[in-house]
């Protein structure tokens, strides 16, 4: 099964992911991370469709998704370099 990961330490708290999640499934922390930013937190793993919209919008690669189905391949079907 696909799995989404939010890396708090990479997050700069911009909130763009919050804005674009079609399911309103991301919120900002009240705590600050090491670099002093609030960070994005997944609200409910079950409600995440792994659409990756949040990840595509994130300027800081603070979100990654493991999806065995599409893994190690890019859209053109070529294996990764």
């Amino acid at each position, binding site marked *: 099964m696909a799995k989404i990961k939010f890396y708090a330490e990479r997050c*700069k708290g911009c909130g763009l992911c919050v804005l674009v999640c079609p399911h309103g499934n991301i919120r900002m922390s009240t705590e*600050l991370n*090491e*670099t*002093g930013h609030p960070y994005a937190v997944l609200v409910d793993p079950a409600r995440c469709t792994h659409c990756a919209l949040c990840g595509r919008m994130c300027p800081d690669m603070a979100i990654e998704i493991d999806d065995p189905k599409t893994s190690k391949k890019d859209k053109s079907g070529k294996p990764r370099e």
Partner: protein
Amino acid sequence: MNSPSETKIIIAGFGGQGIVLVGNLIARGALMEGKNVTGMVAYGAEMRGGTAYATVVVSDEEIACPFVEHPDAAIVLNRPSLEKFEPSVLSGGLVLANTSLVKRDLQRSDVSLIQVAATEIARELGNLKVANMVALGAFIQHAKLLRADSIERAIGDLFSAKNPKFLPLNLAALKAGMERSRFVGPAVGGRRS
């Protein structure tokens, strides 16, 4: 070793925490007390996503060197600033830490410490932005470098010109800082007097 009549201060935190304003007010306060003063702000690319800081030199004599490599006092409003500047403070100097964001103890035993929960106090006052004023209050209270009334006048001058409606809040924050801070070890002013 800095010149005996000279005090060098660094104020550091995130951009947006009002670092420059604190430096500016210290400088203006000193100017009102007839002292010589120079100020400087860290500038440029180093700011993006990093630590912002300002420096002030206050002196009774002509100031030779406007940069501050080894401050007598460091006012640090967040953790990364402590990491960056704690090692450079002069032995016998002073660190002011915003305990709301700086959760760790000092690593040095040869400097004094002023503790103030600036961010929390500011939150209580209803505006996170005045954490800098809380810290300034704490600094004025314990460092004994400048008189409180000079700083109050400096704040008064600045805000009545630009943002009169924020003046009371800022003065309140200054006061809160003076009152709700804790001094551990001898102050910079103390060391001098």
